């Protein structure tokens, strides 16, 4: 290494990154004309950058199911925003006396209604204007009824090995991790995919000692809103929503965009406890 190499060495990295000021750039280029070692140093740096780029990209390929999950999440956000815009517009045309406390839940409820209506294609059937909040409640009611129906008339499992649960992910659009719930005396029977609100949820079926059944639904929580008709409570510092329909207890919770709803023949306390243990 010559003395001129030593002067140039601190500039080589910025030179390779194309971040060198014009005067310094000229200095380095002149040096490189006569110095093979520094030229080789730059080529090695470039080869290393390329290797790092290849290694990082190869280590994290974008899989189709992840792409679908992101598209679903963004689309749900788009629909939510468009729903809110529609409510604001309608309120501007037909102002009503609403308190601030009332505006937010009504807007959110209307957004949910529009998401539901858009996804089921039933807008045309809505001839009479229906109040946003009551429509939203009926959406949530319908969702709960669907969950109860699936629980009461469970189909045979498509997957019986926990390791194969991931096969259902592309249809459901969220990651499916297997909650064994063995500690609660349950035995896993298998999993299937069921339509809920024109979307899909994974349904994991368990049987308890004594023959009681538990169905755990896993779904994209931004697209399947059911909490509005359930009562909130806290289990082990986690918010859980609980209620019952036709003698079936329902408990729901959410974690990082994934919704978990449990329909069971248990009582509300037991259901709440169980759903809080699923992730």
């Amino acid at each position, binding site marked *: 290494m010559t003395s001129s190499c030593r002067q140039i060495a601190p500039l080589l990295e910025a030179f390779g990154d194309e971040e060198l000021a014009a005067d310094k750039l000229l200095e380095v280029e002149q040096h490189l004309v006569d110095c093979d070692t520094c030229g080789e140093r730059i080529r090695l740096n470039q080869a290393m950058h390329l290797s790092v780029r290849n290694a990082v990209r190869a*280590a994290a390929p974008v899989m189709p199911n992840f792409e679908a999950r992101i598209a679903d999440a963004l689309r749900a956000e788009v629909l939510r925003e468009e729903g809110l815009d529609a409510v604001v517009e309608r309120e501007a045309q037909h102002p009503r006396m609403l308190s601030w406390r009332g505006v937010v839940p009504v807007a959110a409820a209307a957004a949910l209604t529009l998401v539901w209506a858009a996804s089921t294609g039933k807008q045309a059937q809505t001839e009479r204007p229906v109040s946003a909040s009551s429509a939203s409640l009926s959406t949530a009611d319908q969702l709960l009824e669907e969950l109860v129906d699936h629980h009461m008339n469970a189909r045979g499992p498509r997957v019986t090995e926990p390791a194969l649960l991931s096969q259902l992910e592309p249809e459901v659009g969220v990651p499916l991790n297997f909650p064994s719930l063995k500690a609660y005396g349950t035995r896993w029977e298998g999993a299937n995919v069921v339509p809920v609100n024109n979307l899909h949820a994974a349904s994991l079926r368990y049987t308890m000692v004594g023959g009681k059944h538990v169905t755990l639904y896993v779904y994209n929580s931004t697209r399947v809103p059911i909490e509005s008709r359930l009562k909130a409570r806290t289990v082990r510092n986690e918010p859980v929503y609980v209620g019952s329909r036709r003698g079936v207890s329902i408990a729901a919770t959410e974690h990082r965009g994934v919704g978990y709803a449990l329909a069971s023949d248990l009582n509300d306390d037991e259901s709440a406890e169980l759903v809080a243990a699923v992730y």
Partner: protein
Amino acid sequence: MSRKVSISAREFETLATSQLSALLGVASRLTRNPADAQDLVQDTLLKAMRARDQFEAGTNMRAWLLRILTNTFINRYRRGGLERSVLDGPDADPLADGWISASTMESMRDPESQALRPMLEQEIKRILDELPEEFRLAVVLSDVEELSYKEIADIMGCPIGTVMSRLHRGRRLLKGRLYEHARALGIVGPEALVGETAEKTAKQEPVIDLSQYREKRVARS
């Protein structure tokens, strides 16, 4: 000159999903866990969509998304900011200090060595993951995402000089470890220290422990 623009949610959806690969690559190296990386990317894109009015036209959307991703990562996983760089001992760089010849450097990037590329990629990923977060993020943003020093400084919330220093140290560690790996694989042979560096090394004082060093320093002053 940049200005804030109004992007519709649907336009944003198209623009953002085209950056999925870049976001997932950086998220994977930050979290070092595929499931966490996917969650981080989803959170980032939803946050970005809600804050899209803050995006300035004429600036790099990828850099803007990566800034949100880095902040989300810090808030979720590192309450006190990125992991500090704690390094044991001197991180000497045989290549940068001129300890090895041009022919060795050539061997390291030789097309024949590229046959070992899959193995090399695994090794690079492993070494990268072992780097302190500050160095790792700087290297990934520069070498993989090819962002400018200024863009990296904005993302990492530090001056450009700090970016240069983190990049330099990160790359130096990476290069040193790869050199060891190349030697272990027989891609390059062992080299004797050459030239002035060797003389300097020969004249180095013997290693002393901390208490001896303090005594010596007191004696000097």
